[in-house]
Structures are given as structure tokens and as C-alpha cells.
């Protein structure tokens, strides 16, 4: 893996020729994240190096097979020439632990767009082959996705400083307890409630409304794209494979020919090569699909942040409304006029006026309540303000990241297409040569 040049401050590695492979292009992406230079990444290099199958008893005491992933941590200092690289610190984690980490981050940093995990089950799969969670290709792509997730978190200006994240990378055994000790589980329930609740916000920040709308649309369009891509892949597979039949018939035909025989036979072999080439081509395209999927899942995280803003804004509005209500009550009580219907007012009308003492004590209670309300309002206001500020900072960061990443993804897709065309030209040129010798 190409390491970032510690001396340069330049941003993205520019692709200067199209002979670069899509893997190299992807490495550029990783380097971009590494170059962003958080304190954490200046200290360590993170890899998800391997995957292994394990069997064990689960929570209901049943045997299950699951996959564990090896996380490697190396110090980030460049190795002197001729020196051996330091042995990494390693630990094993399974997917459910990654999920736990992410849930913790979601709850602890509601104003941050938390990077998504690779999909739990294979979706948008062509040819229905790699739909099995234990399929080696799926496991491999998941390994890459998990590494990507860790690097995203590690390169985030806020998330990279989180203690629990650091422990996730360094403490194999004690990590689970540490997470649970933070008490984040309590917040999980309320978070879930807030995400699904229906409430009307009177004055949401317009930027968040627009962002939520954009995020929903992006989600729709990427889903569509992934769906159609699968259909395209399936069809292309069919086209290539049928050409393999030419291989067989040319071979049979060459048997009855004299001068034409050799040319036909060799051409047939090239047709077989052509038919076989589609497997690698489509496998490589899965990388592109994975890049799109990451951003598909990112839209959920964005939506989540927008919803959180709405919730805070809503709570603020409720507090403000409540305060207004109390102040009006106080005014009525003080001036003796009943403008708003209240049960107390009604009962006093029916059962006679209350005494002066009673009124004064009620007034005092209200005053108290109003003071508390004003404190709460101030707090809520601050909370709202801070949320908007910090969230919007992260959103701007995210927007830039998204534009860059997707642009790179499109470029690498174009490179893949070029490679496919070149292969096609090669094979057909070879076949043509054979035909010419007929």
C-alpha cells in the first residue's frame, strides 16, 4: 500500500494516465483519508488484514459459525531503509462488535455524520452468486469495507479522539465492558424513539430541511442505480458467455476443413477466452458498487443528524411555548382577568373566589416556574445553537468528502470500462488474426 509522503501538504493524488488500475485509484482514496492527518493517524497505521471462520456457542447456547476480522495496528513512523517493519499489535473482532461501536458513536455524537458499516447481508447482487454471508468473495469485500470504516473514523477530526474507539483498536477483552460502562444504552432507546417519532417543527433551520430532502433523493437515486447496475451486469454476463459457444462450433467445424482448420480452431480458443473474461470484469465492478453502497448508507446517517436537529428544535419550541403560556397565566392571576380558560379559573367562578393568600402562593409558584422555564429555555437555545453549529461544520466536511469520493469512484469506473474495452479489442484482434490465416 502506498504510504503518504510525510513532507507534502498536497491534497489528492492526481491520476495522470489511464493505465492506472482501479485498485490504485482506490488506494488513492485511502491515502486521501490518511493524508487528512488526524492525531490518531499520525500515530498509527490501521489495517483489517484477515478474516477467519470461527464456531462457538451464542447467547442462546446454540452452535454458530461466524467470521472474525483481524485488526492490525502499526506505529506510523517510516521504516528506515533495510530495516524490518515493526510487528503489529493485533486483535480479532466480529461484525457485531463493529455494530456495537457504531451504535455507541451514533448515540454519543448525534451531531456527527457517522460513517456506515458495510452491509450486513449481500444486497443488490448480480447472478445471485455471492449472496451467502460465508461466501469468500463477500467476506473479502466486507473486510475491505470494515477497514474503510475504521479509516473513516480514524481520519475524522472529532471521532478519532474518542476513547472507546481507541480501546476498540487496542483492547480485545475489556472493550465490551468499557462500552457498556459509558451507559450509552439508555440513550439508544430515546434515540430510536426520536428517529421514529412524528412531530411538527415550526421553525426548522432551512439548511437542514434542504439537506434532509437532498439526502432522501440521493438515497433513492443510488438505490435505483444499484438495482439497474445488477440487471446490466446480468445481461452482459449472458452476452459474453454465449460467445463461448462459438469456441465449440469452430472447433467442430475445423475438424472437417483442411486449410481453414487451424485458423478456425485457434479463433475458437479466443472466443473461449472472451467468454471467460467477463467473470473478472464483473468482480472488479463490485468495488464500484461498494463505493456507491457506502454513500447509500451514509444518507441514513445524514438523515439521522437532520432528525436530531428537528428533535432539539422541537423541544426548544415546546419549552418556549410552555414559558409563554406560564407568563400569560401569571399576568391573568396578577390582574385578575381570565383570558385563557383554566380549570382553576372555572372552579373559582363556580365555587367562589380564592383567598388573597391562596392567590399569592400560586403567583409565587408560577414565578418560580417561570424562572426555571427561562433557565431551561436558555439552555435549550444554547443546545440548539451548538448543535446547529457543530453539525453544520461536520456537514460541510461531509459534503466535500462526498464530492471528492464520488468523483474518484466515477473516474475509477471509467477506468474499468476502458480496461474492459481494451481486453475486448485484444481478444477480437487475436481472433481476427486467426481468421486471416484461414
Amino acid at each position: 500500500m502506498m504510504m503518504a509522503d510525510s513532507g507534502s501538504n498536497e491534497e489528492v493524488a492526481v491520476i495522470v494516465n489511464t493505465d492506472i488500475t482501479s485498485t490504485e485509484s482506490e488506494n488513492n482514496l485511502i491515502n486521501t483519508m490518511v493524508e487528512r492527518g488526524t492525531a490518531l493517524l499520525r500515530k498509527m497505521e490501521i489495517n483489517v488484514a484477515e478474516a477467519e471462520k470461527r464456531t462457538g456457542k451464542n447467547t442462546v447456547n446454540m452452535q454458530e459459525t461466524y467470521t472474525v476480522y483481524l485488526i492490525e495496528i502499526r506505529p506510523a513512523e517510516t521504516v528506515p531503509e533495510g530495516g524490518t517493519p515493526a510487528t503489529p499489535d493485533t486483535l480479532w473482532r466480529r461484525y457485531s462488535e463493529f455494530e456495537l461501536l457504531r451504535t455507541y458513536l451514533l448515540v454519543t455524537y448525534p451531531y456527527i455524520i457517522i460513517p456506515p458499516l458495510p452491509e450486513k447481508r449481500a444486497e443488490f447482487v448480480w447472478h445471485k452468486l455471492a449472496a451467502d454471508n460465508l461466501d469468500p468473495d463477500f467476506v473479502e469485500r466486507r473486510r475491505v469495507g470494515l477497514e474503510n470504516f475504521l479509516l473513516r473514523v480514524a481520519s475524522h477530526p472529532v471521532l478519532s479522539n474518542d476513547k472507546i474507539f481507541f480501546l476498540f483498536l487496542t483492547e480485545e477483552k475489556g472493550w465490551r465492558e468499557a462500552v457498556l460502562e459509558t451507559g450509552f444504552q439508555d440513550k439508544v432507546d430515546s434515540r430510536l424513539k426520536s428517529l421514529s417519532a412524528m412531530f411538527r417543527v415550526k421553525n426548522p433551520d432551512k439548511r437542514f430541511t434542504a439537506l434532509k430532502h437532498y439526502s432522501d433523493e440521493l438515497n433513492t437515486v443510488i438505490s435505483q442505480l444499484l438495482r439497474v447496475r445488477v440487471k446490466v451486469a446480468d445481461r452482459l454476463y449472458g452476452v459474453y458467455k454465449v460467445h463461448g459457444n462459438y469456441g465449440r462450433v469452430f472447433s467442430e467445424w475445423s475438424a472437417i476443413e483442411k486449410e481453414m482448420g487451424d485458423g478456425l480452431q485457434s479463433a475458437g480458443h479466443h472466443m473461449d477466452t472472451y467468454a471467460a473474461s467477463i467473470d473478472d470484469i464483473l468482480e472488479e465492478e463490485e468495488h464500484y458498487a461498494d463505493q456507491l453502497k457506502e454513500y447509500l448508507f451514509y444518507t441514513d446517517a445524514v438523515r439521522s443528524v437532520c432528525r436530531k436537529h428537528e428533535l432539539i428544535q422541537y423541544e426548544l419550541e415546546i419549552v418556549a411555548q410552555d414559558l409563554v403560556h406560564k407568563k400569560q397565566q401569571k399576568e391573568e392571576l396578577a390582574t385578575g382577568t381570565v383570558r385563557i380558560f383554566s380549570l382553576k379559573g372555572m372552579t373559582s367562578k363556580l365555587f367562589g373566589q380564592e383567598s388573597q393568600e391562596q392567590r399569592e402562593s400560586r403567583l409565587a409558584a408560577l414565578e418560580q416556574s417561570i424562572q426555571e422555564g427561562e433557565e431551561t429555555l436558555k439552555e435549550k437555545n444554547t443546545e440548539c445553537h451548538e448543535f446547529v453549529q457543530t453539525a453544520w461544520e461536520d456537514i460541510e466536511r461531509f459534503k466535500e468528502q462526498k464530492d471528492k469520493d464520488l468523483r474518484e469512484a466515477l473516474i475509477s469506473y471509467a477506468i474499468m470500462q476502458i480496461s474492459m474495452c481494451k481486453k475486448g479489442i485484444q481478444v477480437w484482434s487475436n481472433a481476427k488474426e486467426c481468421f486471416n490465416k484461414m
Partner: protein
Amino acid sequence: MSVGTPRGLASSGQKPIAEILHPLSAAEEPLSVTVNLGGDKTTRVEFDLPEYCVWRRYQDFDWLRTKLEDSQPTHLIPPLPEKFVMKGVVDRFSEEFVETRMKALDKFLKRIADHPVLSFNPHLNAFLTAKDLNKRQGLALLTKVGESVKYVAGGYKLRARPAEFCAMGEYLDTFNQKLGTIDRIAQRILKEQSEYLTELREYGTVYSSWVGLEDELRRPLEGVAGCVTTCCGALEDLGENMSQDFLPVLREYVLYVESMKNVLRKRDQSQAEYEARLEAAILRKQEDRSPMPVEVEKCQDKVECFNADLKADWERWQSNKRQDFKQLLTGMADKNINHYEKCQAAWESLITLLQDKQTEDKTSETN
């Protein structure tokens, strides 16, 4: 009856007949046949003028073929494109159909013009030069050469077919089979490509719809949508080429194989007839010592000539077949290469576009 192999028009060092066919409009309208004999360089004396331009319908080609078959039964006559096309299935007036038919008819005439014997046939001459083909008069006056050989239908059983003709028959059967298979594969590929094209088009439109959501990504997404559209166009062209150029030639060879098989059958028949007559004559000779009848000797000559002509035609057919298929298959390879080249060019220009923008952004950032 033809003896020996006079050199064909094309190979005699004289300027060949160049047939150029121009259709009028509808397929039922006559095609225009232009015969260019290369001015005064030609020494083909049976043609009075250096150039002829005549109108001919499909029926006329069919007439020519029948006449050739009748007058030269020992030779392989090239096939015509299918006579009957189902009205509902094929549009007989569509440009593609007319063009495909025209190419096939052009080939038919060229093959005859190339043939050392057939090219001298008076019916061909009439076909190429007469203003009006008065078929009812039968052109019997022009028929000097070739007494019509009555084709004896069925009747005689063949004793022993010479090995080389057996081999020809077997070859033709297998070859026919392979042609059928190739045809089926080609059609299957066309179908798969057409379905792929449908999905690819939708794929392009999704990218286009994404454009509206974005700012920075607008250009790259538009670019990708554009490339996909270009690839769709290239694929469409490929499919059209294959169905217009590749499949018809393949099918025509199936007809060619049929014609060849017919000639082999006729040869078998003439051999069978000879054997039967010979046997009858031998029996009679044994009875009353009459000399060998002339007819039997004539039959023997006939068979020997037939065999010789057939062998010569077979060699020529094999050689033409080799050329034709070489051309056909290299053509197929070329079309596929062409398709990929178009696609590659589109994607490469997109990368250049995007990379220019990248360096553009970088310089504006550092400024």
C-alpha cells in the same frame, strides 16, 4: 455440354463484368443492372456494346437461374436469396430488406460472371443485355449450345458411388449442420445484446436523473451518462451490422449447400441411369449380339463429363467458400473491435475532461 474449362470473364485478363445494382424504391420494383465491360479493352465478342444498363426484377433472376440449371445441369449454380418472404414477418419494402437482397443478388451475378463456363451462357448474355427479357419466347433462337438434358426423375438406383463424391456428401451434411449452429449462436447473441441494450439505456437515464441533485458532481455525472449513451449507440450499430451483413451471408451458404447437394444428386442419377442402360445393353448383347447402343456410350460420356465438371466446380466452391468465410469472420471481428474502440474513446475523453478539471481546481486552489 461443356468440355474443358474456358477461362471465366474475370480471370481471362480482360476487364471483368462489373455489376452494379441500383434499386428504385420498393422491393417489387425492378433493380437496375449495370454491366460495364471496360470499354474497348474487352475481347468478349458476344457483347456488342461496352456498357449496358438494364432493369431486372427478382423474377428475372429466378428465370436466369432456372435457365442456367436446365442448360448446365452438370454445374453448380449459385443460389438466389429466398424467394418467398412471409408478408407479416418481413417488411418487403424496408430499406434494410432491399439492401440485403440487393447484395445477395449482386453476389449471385458475380459468381456466375466468375465461372469459366457459366459466364459464357447465352441466357446470361440475354439477361445482361436485352432491353426486354421476353421470357415467353424462350430465347430458343439464342440457344446454340447445350442440348437440354432431360433430368430423369428418380427411377434408377445407384450401385456404387465413387468415394470422393461420398466424401463431398458427408462434408456438406456436417458443414450444413455447423452453419445452422453458427446461425443460432449469432441470433442468440443478438437477442442477448438487445436485452443488454435495454438495461444499459435505463442505466444511463438514472445517471442523468442524479445530475439534477448535485453541484460539484454535475459534470462527472453528465459525462458518465453521455458515455453510456455513446456505448448504447455503438452497440446498436453492432447489432444492425450483424443482422444485415453476417446472418444473410450465413443463410445464403445454407442455400448454396442445398444447390450443391442437388448437383450431387443429379450426378448420382446420371450415373445410375448409365449403369442401368449398360446393364440392359449387356443383357441384350448376350442375347442377340447387337452392338453397344450409342445411347449407352453417350451416357458414359455424360457421366464422365459430369464428374469432371463437378470436381472442378467443387474445387472452385471450396476455394470461394474459404474466401467468403474468411471475409465474413474477419468482418465480424472488425465490427466487434470497432464497437469497443468507440466505447473506449468515449470513456477516455471523459477521464481527460475530469482530470483537466482536477488540475484546474488545484491551480485555482493554490492561487
